[in-house]
């Protein structure tokens, strides 16, 4: 009866909505959260930035293979290691009709790297921008920056006059207590224009007829609605009220796939889930003197005790991809040879523990989020049980993400879970600089456990300024190999991405979990 009703109602909807689509091609999209505002330079939230890149555009962008391609810049050349010259695209117009020129790039990049800018960190190393002529700019850097283009994919270009006219030259400053014009208005060069927006309710974009690029999409309109409740989001898709939902809850995959007119899109994502080890002098919550995790044999024993095949098959419903490296295959720096996990072996784990002087194991705490990653809490529960089999008593602490990451940063955990997608950089260097280098200024910001290897530190600093890609890759492989041998972190898996669409919708699912609707088509 239920199936029949569902089929009937879907047929009804398809029948009655089809003519409207043919004329209009409106894509209705529901995501779990809303964008934070309309200013693409006001937040580091990758969902917000990506959504706003439908309206605004960067100098260079990722294509559907996540390779960098020209956008507002047409070409670039290295003048000196720390000076890069960009040729800009001519004939591009902002949505309000004004021309795109070098002045816009200068002002936008300086705005993004202003001292008060919240996204200053997304474009490190930029010192100044020089206008050479109307369609050429030079970026002056504090040193060689091999990943400059990767950074630039995240920096939206505003219209300089529009910013000046609306008092938006400086970034929106939350402490002043006044509302920025750019938070509630938008004027970009992108494939879609802002039509209307009601925060947390609906944002409507219309196709930009005057876009410089040949559109691959065939949409005339995008209606975006945030729907935070999983059940409601799925219901909205099944009832035909929306065409695309991200994310689609794993547990509803069968139901969506089994319903007529809808399908699930699943693929492993970029985000690698891993566990950090406390390597400070004492355990945060242990029953032994000192800290056993300082001994690489103990860390390896933990690694060997975890059966990731079981986690994949039983908890992740076969959808995850087990990882031996800390980066996913799509990320530059990945090396298939290094991606082999140490095989699951409890006997070897016990032997290693005994060798390290802990034949009876020991106690420590393990902190996990319960709302940050796919089935995060369940994975941790399973790991606790597996560790118990080799005599390790992991006391599991699960909390919401805000508390979890705070405690992790403060060093209150002996092992904690972290997911790292290397975004927005999209390069293995992100892992080396943030998680494997010892804490030191801008480096090792996510290495609260305090892993330190002099060689890894040295390589990381070299990779940072190496412009020769082959050498850079080679050094990355070397650094990753060392850290893997020492089990600096315990890699687990890449979690699956799960979206769902109506059958007549085609979207490109990139592993960074960002929906680029300029590739979407409605049949």
């Amino acid at each position, binding site marked *: 009866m239920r199936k029949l*009703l*569902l089929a009937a*109602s*879907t047929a*009804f*909807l398809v029948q009655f909505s089809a003519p409207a689509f043919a004329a209009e091609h409106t894509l209705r999209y*529901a995501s779990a*959260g809303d964008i*934070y*505002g309309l200013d693409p330079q*006001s937040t*580091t939230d990758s969902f917000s930035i990506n959504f706003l890149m439908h309206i605004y555009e960067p100098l260079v962008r990722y294509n559907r293979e996540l390779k960098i391609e020209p956008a507002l810049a047409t070409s670039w050349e290295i003048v000196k290691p720390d000076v890069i010259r960009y040729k800009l695209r001519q004939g591009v117009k902002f949505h309000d009709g004004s021309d795109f020129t070098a002045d816009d790039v200068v002002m936008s990049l300086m705005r993004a790297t202003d001292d008060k800018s*919240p*996204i*200053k*960190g*997304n474009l490190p190393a930029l010192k100044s921008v020089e206008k050479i002529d109307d369609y050429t700019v030079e970026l002056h850097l504090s040193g060689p920056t091999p990943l400059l283009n990767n950074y630039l994919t995240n920096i939206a270009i505003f219209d300089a006059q529009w910013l000046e006219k609306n008092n938006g030259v400086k970034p*929106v400053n*939350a*402490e002043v*207590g006044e*509302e*920025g014009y750019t*938070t*509630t208005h938008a004027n970009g060069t992108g494939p879609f224009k802002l039509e209307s927006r*009601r*925060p*947390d*309710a*609906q944002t409507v974009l219309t196709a930009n007829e005057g876009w410089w690029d040949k559109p691959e999409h065939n949409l005339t309109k995008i209606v975006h*609605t*945030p*729907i*935070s*409740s999983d*059940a*409601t989001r799925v*219901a*909205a898709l*099944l*009832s*035909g*009220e929306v065409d695309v939902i991200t994310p689609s809850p794993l547990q509803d995959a069968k139901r969506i796939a089994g319903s007529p007119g809808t399908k699930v899109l699943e693929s492993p994502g970029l985000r690698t889930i891993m566990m950090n080890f406390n390597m400070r002098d004492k355990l945060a919550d242990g029953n032994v003197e000192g800290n056993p995790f300082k001994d690489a044999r103990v860390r390896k024993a933990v690694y060997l005790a975890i059966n990731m095949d079981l986690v994949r098959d039983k908890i992740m419903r076969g959808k995850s991809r087990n990882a031996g490296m800390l980066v996913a295959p799509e990320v530059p720096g990945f090396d298939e040879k290094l991606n082999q996990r140490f095989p699951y072996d409890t006997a070897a784990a016990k032997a290693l523990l005994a060798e390290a002087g802990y034949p009876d194991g020991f106690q420590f705490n393990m902190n996990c989020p319960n709302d940050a990653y796919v089935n995060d809490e369940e994975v941790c529960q399973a790991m606790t049980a597996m560790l118990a089999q080799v005599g390790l008593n992991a006391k599991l602490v699960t909390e*919401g*993400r*805000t*508390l*979890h*990451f*705070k405690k992790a*940063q403060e060093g209150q955990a002996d092992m904690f879970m972290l997911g790292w997608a290397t975004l*927005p950089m999209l390069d293995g260097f*992100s892992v080396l*600089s*943030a998680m494997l280098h010892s*804490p030191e*200024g*801008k480096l090792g*910001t*996510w290495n609260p456990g305090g892993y330190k290897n002099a060689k890894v530190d040295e390589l990381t600093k070299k990779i940072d300024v190496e412009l020769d890609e082959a050498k850079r890759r080679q050094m990355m492989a070397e650094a990753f190999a060392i850290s893997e041998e020492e089990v600096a972190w315990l890699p687990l898996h890449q979690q699956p991405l799960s979206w769902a669409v109506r059958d007549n919708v085609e979207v490109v699912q990139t592993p960074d979990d960002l929906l680029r609707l300029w590739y979407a088509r409605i049949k």
Partner: protein
Amino acid sequence: MFVFLVRRLFQAVMVMLAVAFIAFLMFRYLGDPVNNIVSQDATQEQREEVRQRLHLDDPMIMQYGRFVANAAQGDFGMSYRNSRPVSALLAERLPATAELVLVAALLSLVLGIPLGIYTALKPRGILSQGLQILSLIGISLPTFVTGILLILIFSVWLGWLPSFGRGEVIDIGWWSTGFLTLSGIKALILPSFMLCLFQLTLIMRLVRAEMMEVLRADYIKFAKARGLRNKTIHFRHALKNTLIPVVTIFGLQLGGLIAFAIITETVFQWPGMGALFIQAVNFTDVPVMAAYLVMVSLIFVIINTSVDLLYNVIDPRLRADPTRASGRGA
């Protein structure tokens, strides 16, 4: 009367101060907003800088003091998440919540009172007994389950009503209303029904119990003896006396409707203040949470005060003794 209002105003201020204080006591257990604001690989210095900029490194009592001082001047600060003034965010969401609560409140009265009367007059009828059982389910089922069931039936299976949002809204000045469009009204049906269900069953059962009580009273027997028509007895004499406690309970429950709206708004993605609050909690958006809690406590005080005043008006016996009415707690 004037003294009563001044006293109430003073109480209201005290309640709001206390709510804000308790709120600030709790905020630090919610986690660190800085992690949500800076990029994932921000340096320790960048984190510290943001922390200082937002005064998060100050002791709790100073943060509280600053909030109160600013709030007294009408400034609730800026949302960390949206970088917009909190007052603007709340004002934007107020119409959605107000319309939802209004419709839910009306529904609970318009449906609850007649159903209550019916079940009181025909206590042994099959329909009455069925309603009684249904009301028991309505009162005991968690509201979010009811909401999801409603979505499943009316949106997914039947496809009659939208499963989320407010539909099309029309702006009248700063107030956005969903009453003026068909899609807006359709969008209101499921959420307002989910929200009112608890009050509806409460009112129905209350009216039934009161009515049955009243129908046994002597003056009803006298009215019957006088040969008055049943209709007159039931609706002119019995119902009027039934309604006094109903009004009180209804008023007090109105605050509950606003509070429960948080769940309804989350299930139906209703863009109201409750949804804003839930988002703020997830983001540890302290200014939004503080302002919302203070505002809701103000609404509670206003409602309770109005109910006390109304009680005075309806029940003539209380009018002679004003101290009794004003003695009720906020």
